[in-house]
C-alpha cells in the first residue's frame, strides 16, 4: 500500500496538508462537509485525536471516514489515552483499513480538557511511538513477538520552533528523527526569520518539514494564543494588522495574513510545505489556499 502523502513529500511539489476535527457526538455532517471541501485540494488531511484533551469521536473513525470519502488521511495519535497495547492494536487496525500516515504526539495534559479527573496514561511518549511503528513494520511487537502481518506507515511527529527555551525541543526533535520520523509538522510559526534559522538547523536531518500555519481570526484570538498556547508567539505587527480590520472583517485579514505567509514560505523554498490549521473554521482552508495562490 503506497501512501499518497509520502509520494507528495518525496516529489518536488509544495505539499499542503490541513486538518479536521471529529465531532462531540455521532453527527458526522460537519466533518464530512469539511473532508469534502478539502479532499481534492490538499495532500493529506490530519484528523485530530481528542484535541485539547476534549473527549470526541475517535481520530481513527475520522481517518476511516476520510479514506472512505476518497481523501488521504493522516491519523493523529496521542499517548495520553492509550497504553502500549492499545496504541499498537490501533496501528494494526489503521493499517488493515488502508490508513497509511500517522502523526505521533505525546498529547496535551488531561487537565486541559473536559474530563479533568481522568487518568493520563503516557505509557509511552511521541518518540517512542514513532519507534514502535518502525518496530511493527519489521514484523515484531514491543514485546518482541512475531506479528502475523506487519504494518507500513509514513510516520511523523511535531516540533515547536518558537519554543522558549528552544534547545530542549531540538534535542527531542533529533530523537524523533532518529526514531524514524519521516516528516515533522511544526507548531504555528509567525516569525519567518526565526523559522529560517530553524530550517537551517533542521536541514541537516533526513526529514521533511511542514510549517504550521494557524489562521488568526481576530486580534483577540491572537492575544489569547500568545497568553495560553505554549510555543505560539504572534508578533505585535500582525495583531495590529488584525486590529485595523473593520468590525466583523478581522477574519478576512487573517486569511490574507495566512495566505501571505504561505506564499513567502513557498517562494523562499523554506521547507517542504505547510500544514494549515483553521481551528473551528475548517471551511475557510480553500480560501486561505486561494490567498496563497495555491492550486
Amino acid at each position, binding site marked *: 500500500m503506497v501512501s499518497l502523502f509520502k509520494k507528495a513529500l518525496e516529489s518536488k511539489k509544495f505539499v499542503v496538508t490541513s486538518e479536521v476535527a471529529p465531532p462531540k457526538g455521532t453527527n458526522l455532517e460537519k466533518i464530512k462537509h469539511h473532508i469534502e471541501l478539502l479532499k481534492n485540494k490538499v495532500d493529506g488531511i490530519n484528523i485530530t485525536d481528542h484535541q485539547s484533551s476534549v473527549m470526541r469521536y475517535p481520530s481513527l473513525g475520522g481517518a476511516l471516514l476520510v479514506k472512505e470519502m476518497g481523501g488521504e488521511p493522516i491519523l493523529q495519535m496521542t499517548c495520553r489515552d492509550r497504553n502500549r497495547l492499545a496504541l499498537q492494536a490501533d496501528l494494526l487496525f489503521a493499517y488493515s483499513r488502508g490508513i497509511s500516515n500517522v502523526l505521533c504526539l505525546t498529547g496535551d*495534559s488531561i*487537565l486541559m480538557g473536559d474530563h479533568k479527573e481522568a487518568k493520563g496514561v*503516557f505509557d509511552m511518549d511521541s518518540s517512542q511511538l514513532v519507534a514502535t511503528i518502525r518496530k511493527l513494520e519489521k514484523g515484531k511487537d514491543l514485546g518482541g513477538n512475531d506479528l502475523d502481518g506487519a504494518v507500513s506507515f509514513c510516520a511523523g511527529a511535531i*516540533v515547536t520552533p518558537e519554543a*522558549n527555551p528552544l534547545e530542549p525541543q531540538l*534535542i527531542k526533535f533529533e530523537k524523533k528523527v532518529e526514531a524514524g520520523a519521516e516528516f515533522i509538522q511544526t507548531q504555528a510559526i509567525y516569525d519567518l526569520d526565526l523559522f529560517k534559522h530553524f530550517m537551517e538547523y533542521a536541514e541537516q536531518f533526513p526529514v521533511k518539514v511542514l510549517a504550521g500555519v494557524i489562521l488568526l481570526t481576530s486580534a483577540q484570538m491572537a492575544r489569547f494564543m500568545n497568553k495560553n498556547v*505554549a510555543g505560539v508567539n504572534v508578533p505585535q505587527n500582525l495583531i495590529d494588522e488584525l486590529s485595523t480590520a473593520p468590525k466583523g472583517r478581522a477574519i478576512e485579514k487573517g486569511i490574507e495574513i495566512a495566505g501571505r505567509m504561505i506564499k513567502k514560505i513557498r517562494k523562499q523554498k523554506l521547507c517542504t510545505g505547510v500544514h494549515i490549521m483553521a481551528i473551528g473554521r475548517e471551511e475557510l482552508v480553500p480560501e486561505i489556499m486561494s490567498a496563497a495562490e495555491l492550486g
Partner: protein
Amino acid sequence: MIRSITQKKTEEELDQLLTGIARIFIIGCGTCVTMTHTGGTPEVTEIKEKLLKKGKLVTGDLVLPVACDNLTAEVLHENRSKIDLADGLLILTCAFGVQTIARQVKKTTIPGLDTLFIGKETGLGQFDEICTQCGSCILGETGGVCPVTSCHKGLVNGPCGGTKNGKCEIDEKKDCAWTLIYNRLKDLNRLDLMKRYQKPKNFQREPRPGKYWLTPT
C-alpha cells in the same frame, strides 16, 4: 527528610464518612502531619470541637509520636479503654498511619486526610514531590532531576510541546522538569545524556503490591 504530604478532607466528605458513627476516637500524629498542619495537636483539637458541635460523642483523642512506627501498637494498647468505647476512629494521619492503626484495632477507621504524595519541604510551607518509587531509577541520566515524578506526564525522552518559559503547561507555578534537566546537564557538559533514546519504561519492575525480601525466598 522524606515526608508524607497530606491535605484535609472537606467537611462535607467527612460528614458523609462519619454518618452513623456516634462515638468517635480521634488520632493525630506528631511527625509529617504536624509539619503540614493537617493532623497535629491543634488540628485534633479543632476537629474535636467541630464534632462535639455536630452532636458526636468523642470518647478520647491522642497524638501518636510516629503513627507509621511499630510503637503505635503499644500506644493504642495503653489507650484501649477509650478506644473500645468508640464506634469508629477518625485518623488524622497519612495513609501509612491509617493502615498501621487499622491493622491493630478492630474498629471502623475513617481517614480525615488525603495523602497527596511523598516529598519534602523545599521552602517555608512549600512541599515538593520528589520520588514516585517507580523501581527503575533514571536519575543517572537526567542530572539528578526525576522526570518520572517532576514531569506532569512522566516523560523520559525530553519535554513535551506544552512547556512555556521553563514552566509546565498545567500550572505556571510548576517548573518544567525537562528545562531543569536540560539546564543541569548543560552545566555539567553532559547534554549527550539527554540525547540518549530511552525505551518505553518497564512499569512492572516490582508489580503492585510491592513486596521485598532481604533474603530471596
